């Protein structure tokens, strides 16, 4: 059986530009907003037809509830608390010197409503809901649950729903985090297990809620059985390949020793794709062909999916995507504001 591992740590720097974190966060905060969204790191791995997705939501203080939505390539089998050091270890693998600066991730969550609720899970101060529906249904669900979506959300939700009608909504309850004794900067790792045929990484979603000139900085870590083929290629529009090599045994051993990470294979290829783009440049996603041949233009967002003529299959097709951490990174950017009535003009 084809084995392949795709992973990535996405970083929402976009949402949280390190150069001016306060300003970058400001757009994510509601009128009553006291919660700051920090950086989110994510790892996605693919092995034996199953996508493993690990990200972390970081408590940044404040109160109230915040949320966001993430497009998924398929219906998760399981959503559970993730291991404690997987994300940190990945960052150290490619940026060992700056390890001390790397761990600021965070936050998220979201929701939706007239969509079909497939799964609900509580992890620490996070309420996670897996939804199935079109962009309109998922957007309406979010609106009905108190989220104020940015103006680009309707189009972007349709963009993703046309490829996979599965979304993960997460709500971060800052009050619950405080009650649990979480300190600012504490992360809650989440591990999502998704059967799928081939992975892709949603990058376009990182720009959601951003102004056209806002910078998006993110790191995507991919771990595959062999050197993958990626699309868009050649890299441009703010995307660059910063690391591409056989994964070291020490990295794989370390990852495998973390909670829930026993699925990590014995060998693999580690790629790191860095995103440093303006929001207006991010009109694409990252498609990955684990076999190293021909990534899907549909998965990369370069071509619209063919219209479905038959009943929807819950199992993703080969063109469907493997979820993505980056989307998680963009959580905050996507749909925010819960429990705070929006203030209109």
């Amino acid at each position: 059986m084809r084995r392949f591992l795709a992973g990535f740590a996405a970083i929402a720097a976009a949402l949280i530009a390190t150069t001016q974190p306060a300003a970058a966060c400001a757009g994510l905060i509601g009128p009553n907003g006291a919660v700051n969204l920090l950086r989110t790191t994510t790892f996605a791995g693919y092995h034996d037809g199953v996508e493993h997705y690990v990200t972390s939501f970081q408590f940044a203080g404040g109160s109230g509830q915040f949320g966001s939505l993430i497009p998924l390539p398929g219906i998760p089998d399981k959503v559970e608390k993730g291991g404690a050091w997987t994300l940190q270890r990945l960052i150290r693998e490619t940026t060992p010197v700056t390890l001390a600066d790397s761990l600021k991730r965070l936050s998220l969550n979201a929701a939706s409503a007239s969509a079909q609720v497939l799964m609900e899970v509580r992890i620490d101060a996070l309420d996670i809901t897996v939804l199935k529906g079109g962009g309109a249904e998922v957007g309406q669900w979010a609106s009905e649950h108190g989220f104020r979506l940015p103006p680009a959300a309707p189009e972007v939700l349709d963009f993703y729903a046309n490829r996979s009608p599965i979304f993960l909504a997460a709500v971060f309850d800052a009050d619950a985090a405080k009650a649990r004794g979480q300190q600012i900067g504490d992360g809650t790792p989440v591990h999502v297990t998704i059967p799928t045929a081939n992975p892709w990484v949603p990058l376009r979603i990182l720009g959601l809620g951003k102004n056209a000139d806002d910078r998006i900085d993110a790191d995507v870590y991919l771990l595959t059985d062999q050197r993958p083929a990626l699309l868009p290629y050649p890299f441009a529009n703010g995307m660059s390949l910063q690391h591409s090599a056989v994964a070291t045994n020490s990295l794989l051993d370390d990852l495998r020793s973390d909670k829930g990470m026993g699925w990590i294979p014995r060998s693999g290829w580690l790629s790191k794709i860095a995103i440093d783009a303006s929001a207006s440049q991010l009109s694409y996603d990252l498609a990955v062909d684990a076999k190293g041949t021909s990534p899907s233009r549909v998965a990369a967002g370069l071509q619209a999916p063919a219209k479905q003529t038959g009943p929807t299959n819950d199992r993703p097709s080969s063109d469907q995507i493997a979820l993505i951490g980056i989307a998680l990174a963009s959580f905050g950017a996507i749909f925010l504001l819960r429990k705070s009535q929006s203030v209109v003009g």
Partner: protein
Amino acid sequence: MIIRTLVALALAALAASACTTASAAQLTTHVAIRIHYSHFDQTKIDVPVGVPITFTLINDDPIDHEWLIGDEAFHARHRAGTETVHGDRPNEISLPPFSVKTTTLTFDKPGPLTFICHFPQHEAYGMAGVVVVKP
């Protein structure tokens, strides 16, 4: 979805109405404005002065929008506004997801008036248009 179907039917009916009116009089007195992907489908509308103008506002998005029409001073106030929801003022219409609302306004003097959605980022995203009141 039933709501979307109703919205589509309402839009078609109003479009037909608007066309009829426009051909009968130089300027229309019935205007249908559809919101889709956070954009108004009409951004410049000519209407006659001193005549009741009926606006049918169709929000085809799964998110909240609003339609506020007025002069620059009016919009300056709303950009810094703190109202959670707009009431029954005919020039300030809140539009929940997939909703259709109608309002009638009579403009008493010629000139341009802008209509804008003042939810955060919506104006910058392009949710603005102008009604030109013609003598």
